[in-house]
């Protein structure tokens, strides 16, 4: 009875602050230990990738390719549509803004740089986080619950080597390719709009793009995309392996994966640019 009334009683601001602080510290320490676990997974993955064969734990190419199919190839239609639409959107914004300066044709430069440096890696990162990161977390979480991870271990198959490395490798290999793909289709979308709106020929658009765009700009975006890929894969694996209870925990793990992946991508992006623009 006493307990019940204590629970029902409205809590004072001090107590509320105290609770929030305790909760904050708890989630902070969880975050730290998860970061540590993720880093350990990354180190282990590197170890298995290069030395696994010596320990009878080789990373098998077919499973990497299977993951690449799942992450990249099956995502191509949506990746293509998204980047095309982003390209059109940027062209519309750009032309509308630049009109005030009478510099509509500069839209090519604006689109080329913003897509290659910012939008392509970001959009692909968000797409892969939502599509493949969540799927990976759900798959691993389900495997934990159904004891498939235990089954791997008793068969002498290291789960990091068998599950984590292929997913990590596939993401790290595919994200740059998908980012480049998004570069191409984003700029194509902008070119199509520029032709309709400004009557700019594809040839002229392409020429202007190649003048504006350097390898550095492309590599800026592609380099970031590799970091995003590793981040997404690790967040997914850490959350998947943290599942202990039942199916509802799998749902929570996938949600958490998507939220943390995207948040991480956006923050990493900012840090990346901060470091790069200062260097």
């Amino acid at each position: 009875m006493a307990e019940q009334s204590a629970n029902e009683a409205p809590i004072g601001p001090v107590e509320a602050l105290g609770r929030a602080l305790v909760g904050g510290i708890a989630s902070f320490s969880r975050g730290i230990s998860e970061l540590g676990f993720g880093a350990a997974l990354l180190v282990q993955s590197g170890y298995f990738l290069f030395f696994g064969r010596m320990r009878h734990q080789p990373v098998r190419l077919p499973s990497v390719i299977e993951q690449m199919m799942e992450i990249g190839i099956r995502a191509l239609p949506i990746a293509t549509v998204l980047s095309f639409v982003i390209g059109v959107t940027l062209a519309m914004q750009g032309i509308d803004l630049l009109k005030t300066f009478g510099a509509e044709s500069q839209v090519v430069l604006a689109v080329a740089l913003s897509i290659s440096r910012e939008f392509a890696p970001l959009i692909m990162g968000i797409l892969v986080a939502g599509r493949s990161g969540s799927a990976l977390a759900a798959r691993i979480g389900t495997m934990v619950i159904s004891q498939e991870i235990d089954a791997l271990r008793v068969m002498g198959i290291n789960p990091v080597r068998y599950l984590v490395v292929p997913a990590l490798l596939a993401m790290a290999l595919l994200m740059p390719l998908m980012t480049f793909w998004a570069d191409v289709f984003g700029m194509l979308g902008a070119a199509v709009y520029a032709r309709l709106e400004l009557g700019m020929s594809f040839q002229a658009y392409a020429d202007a793009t190649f003048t504006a765009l350097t390898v550095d700009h492309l590599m800026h975006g592609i380099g970031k995309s590799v970091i995003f890929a590793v981040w997404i894969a690790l967040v997914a694996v850490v959350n998947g392996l943290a599942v202990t209870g039942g199916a509802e925990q799998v749902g929570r793990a996938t949600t958490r994966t998507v939220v943390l992946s995207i948040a991480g991508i956006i923050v990493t992006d900012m840090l990346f640019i901060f470091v790069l623009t200062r260097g």
Partner: protein
Amino acid sequence: MDPTEHMAAGPRDTENAIVTEDAEPVVIDVRDLVTHYPGNAEPTLKGVNMRIYPNEIVCIMGGSGSGKSTLLRQIMALDRPTSGQVRILGHDLSAIGHRDMHELRKKIGVAFQGGAMFNSMTVGENLKLPLREHAKLAEEQMDIMVRMKLAFVSLDPETALKLPSELSGGMLKRAAMARAIMMDPGLLFCDEPSAGLDPAVSAALDDLILKLRDVMGMTIVVVTHERASAFKIADRIVILDKGKILMSGTLDELRATGPKRVQDLLDGVPEETEVANWI
């Protein structure tokens, strides 16, 4: 009388004995095993001593929460003990190197409670997994072995082409058993093999376990709730209660000399506080 005395009583059939390093025919030797899960007030296993001899079927029984699964995880080398020692086939699990561990894993088969079959693969691929990892065999040879093992557990050869999700509960347990014996292990662990199955299927699984001991010469540890099944297959029954071994011996020995609590457990009389999952 000290109930632990019964632990030494077990068939010492040296014909199929697995000779261990110290030439003592003990397959599993558990000494003073304590397992304390972090966050729990009390240890789950409070000093367990148990020996399992070659070619015997040992059933571990006990009420819900008595620590059966925890003990099984320890002797499957899935978790590390808080203190105490587990030796399997002469290897001290706390001091084993990963090369020896890898070899040891090949000699141990595990049939998990829910089957723990990999849902993304066909049953045939599931069965081939240990072979792919541990043996260098041609695809045709592996197909032949899959068919042999399926036949051994009385499943049709076509089962190999199905997905685990397409099997009934009984078929899934058989398939899991088939995967567990793919490498012809000397030691087999079964977690609740007949839980949730109808009596006919359950009886057939009991026969299968007996056949594995008699035909393949395996040493088998079974965790079970099903009293009828344990009475039928067990050479020895180990009774676990609140993290300690209450008694161990043949059914007749337990019946003849067991204290009231043991008799109650054997008769399926629930403790007042215990949910009646023994009935």
